[in-house]
């Protein structure tokens, strides 16, 4: 059987995917972005908006929070649409729902200063990260 398989095996490989970046997927970028969102929420909550000296920091923290919520969403959507395949969905039937809820959490964190939402986003990214690495085993 092995000999037959060897005999029939293709001699050349043709690629159907994009050129260099294809196959390089990693949820760590989403994790760092989610952690940054949580850190910014923590800082924003501690700032006194009436203190003129803190106002600049407040604006910067809000900007960074929104940027990283957007980065997190983008990175998650890349994993969802490009990395995960139908066979993964068979093994993880809640995959679509998990990604959809995580993307919604990114939006919620962009719009609000909400420690619970930030913690929920970190947990959602961790769940996706755990699934991702399980598919690599």
């Amino acid at each position, binding site marked *: 059987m092995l000999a037959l398989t060897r005999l*029939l*095996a*293709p001699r*050349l*490989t*043709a*690629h*159907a*995917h*994009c*050129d260099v970046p*294809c196959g390089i997927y990693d949820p760590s970028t989403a994790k760092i972005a989610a952690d940054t969102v949580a850190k910014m929420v923590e800082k924003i909550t501690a700032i006194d908006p009436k203190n003129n000296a803190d106002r600049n920091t407040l604006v910067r923290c809000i900007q960074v929070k929104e940027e990283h919520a957007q980065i997190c969403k983008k990175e998650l959507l890349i994993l969802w*649409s*490009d990395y995960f*395949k139908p066979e993964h969905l068979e093994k993880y039937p809640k995959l679509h729902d998990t990604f959809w809820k995580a993307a919604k959490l990114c939006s919620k964190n962009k719009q609000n200063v909400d420690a619970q939402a930030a913690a929920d986003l970190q947990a959602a990214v961790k769940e996706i990260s755990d699934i991702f690495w399980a598919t690599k085993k």
Partner: protein
Amino acid sequence: MEPVLRDGDWLVVAALRRPPRAGELVVLDDPLAPGRLLVKRVRDVTTSGVRVGSDASEHAGHLAERGVIPLSLVHGRPVLRYAPLARVGIPR
């Protein structure tokens, strides 16, 4: 190229004996990486070559899909997928 082709599919490729037609799958040299073969779908045929694209939208940004690829780089057409056994058939 999913769902027609998946990673690891084994294909019989027939040498190109006529110009490719729009809608057909073709095997071609990657114009950006000599020696690397690609399998793509012909989008349209021009007097100077073919434009190709992907079935899977996430790979639509492949640089090789932009511009006209000379016919000298197009080698053949996949005519049979013979493995895995569950997916044996004519790739269209």
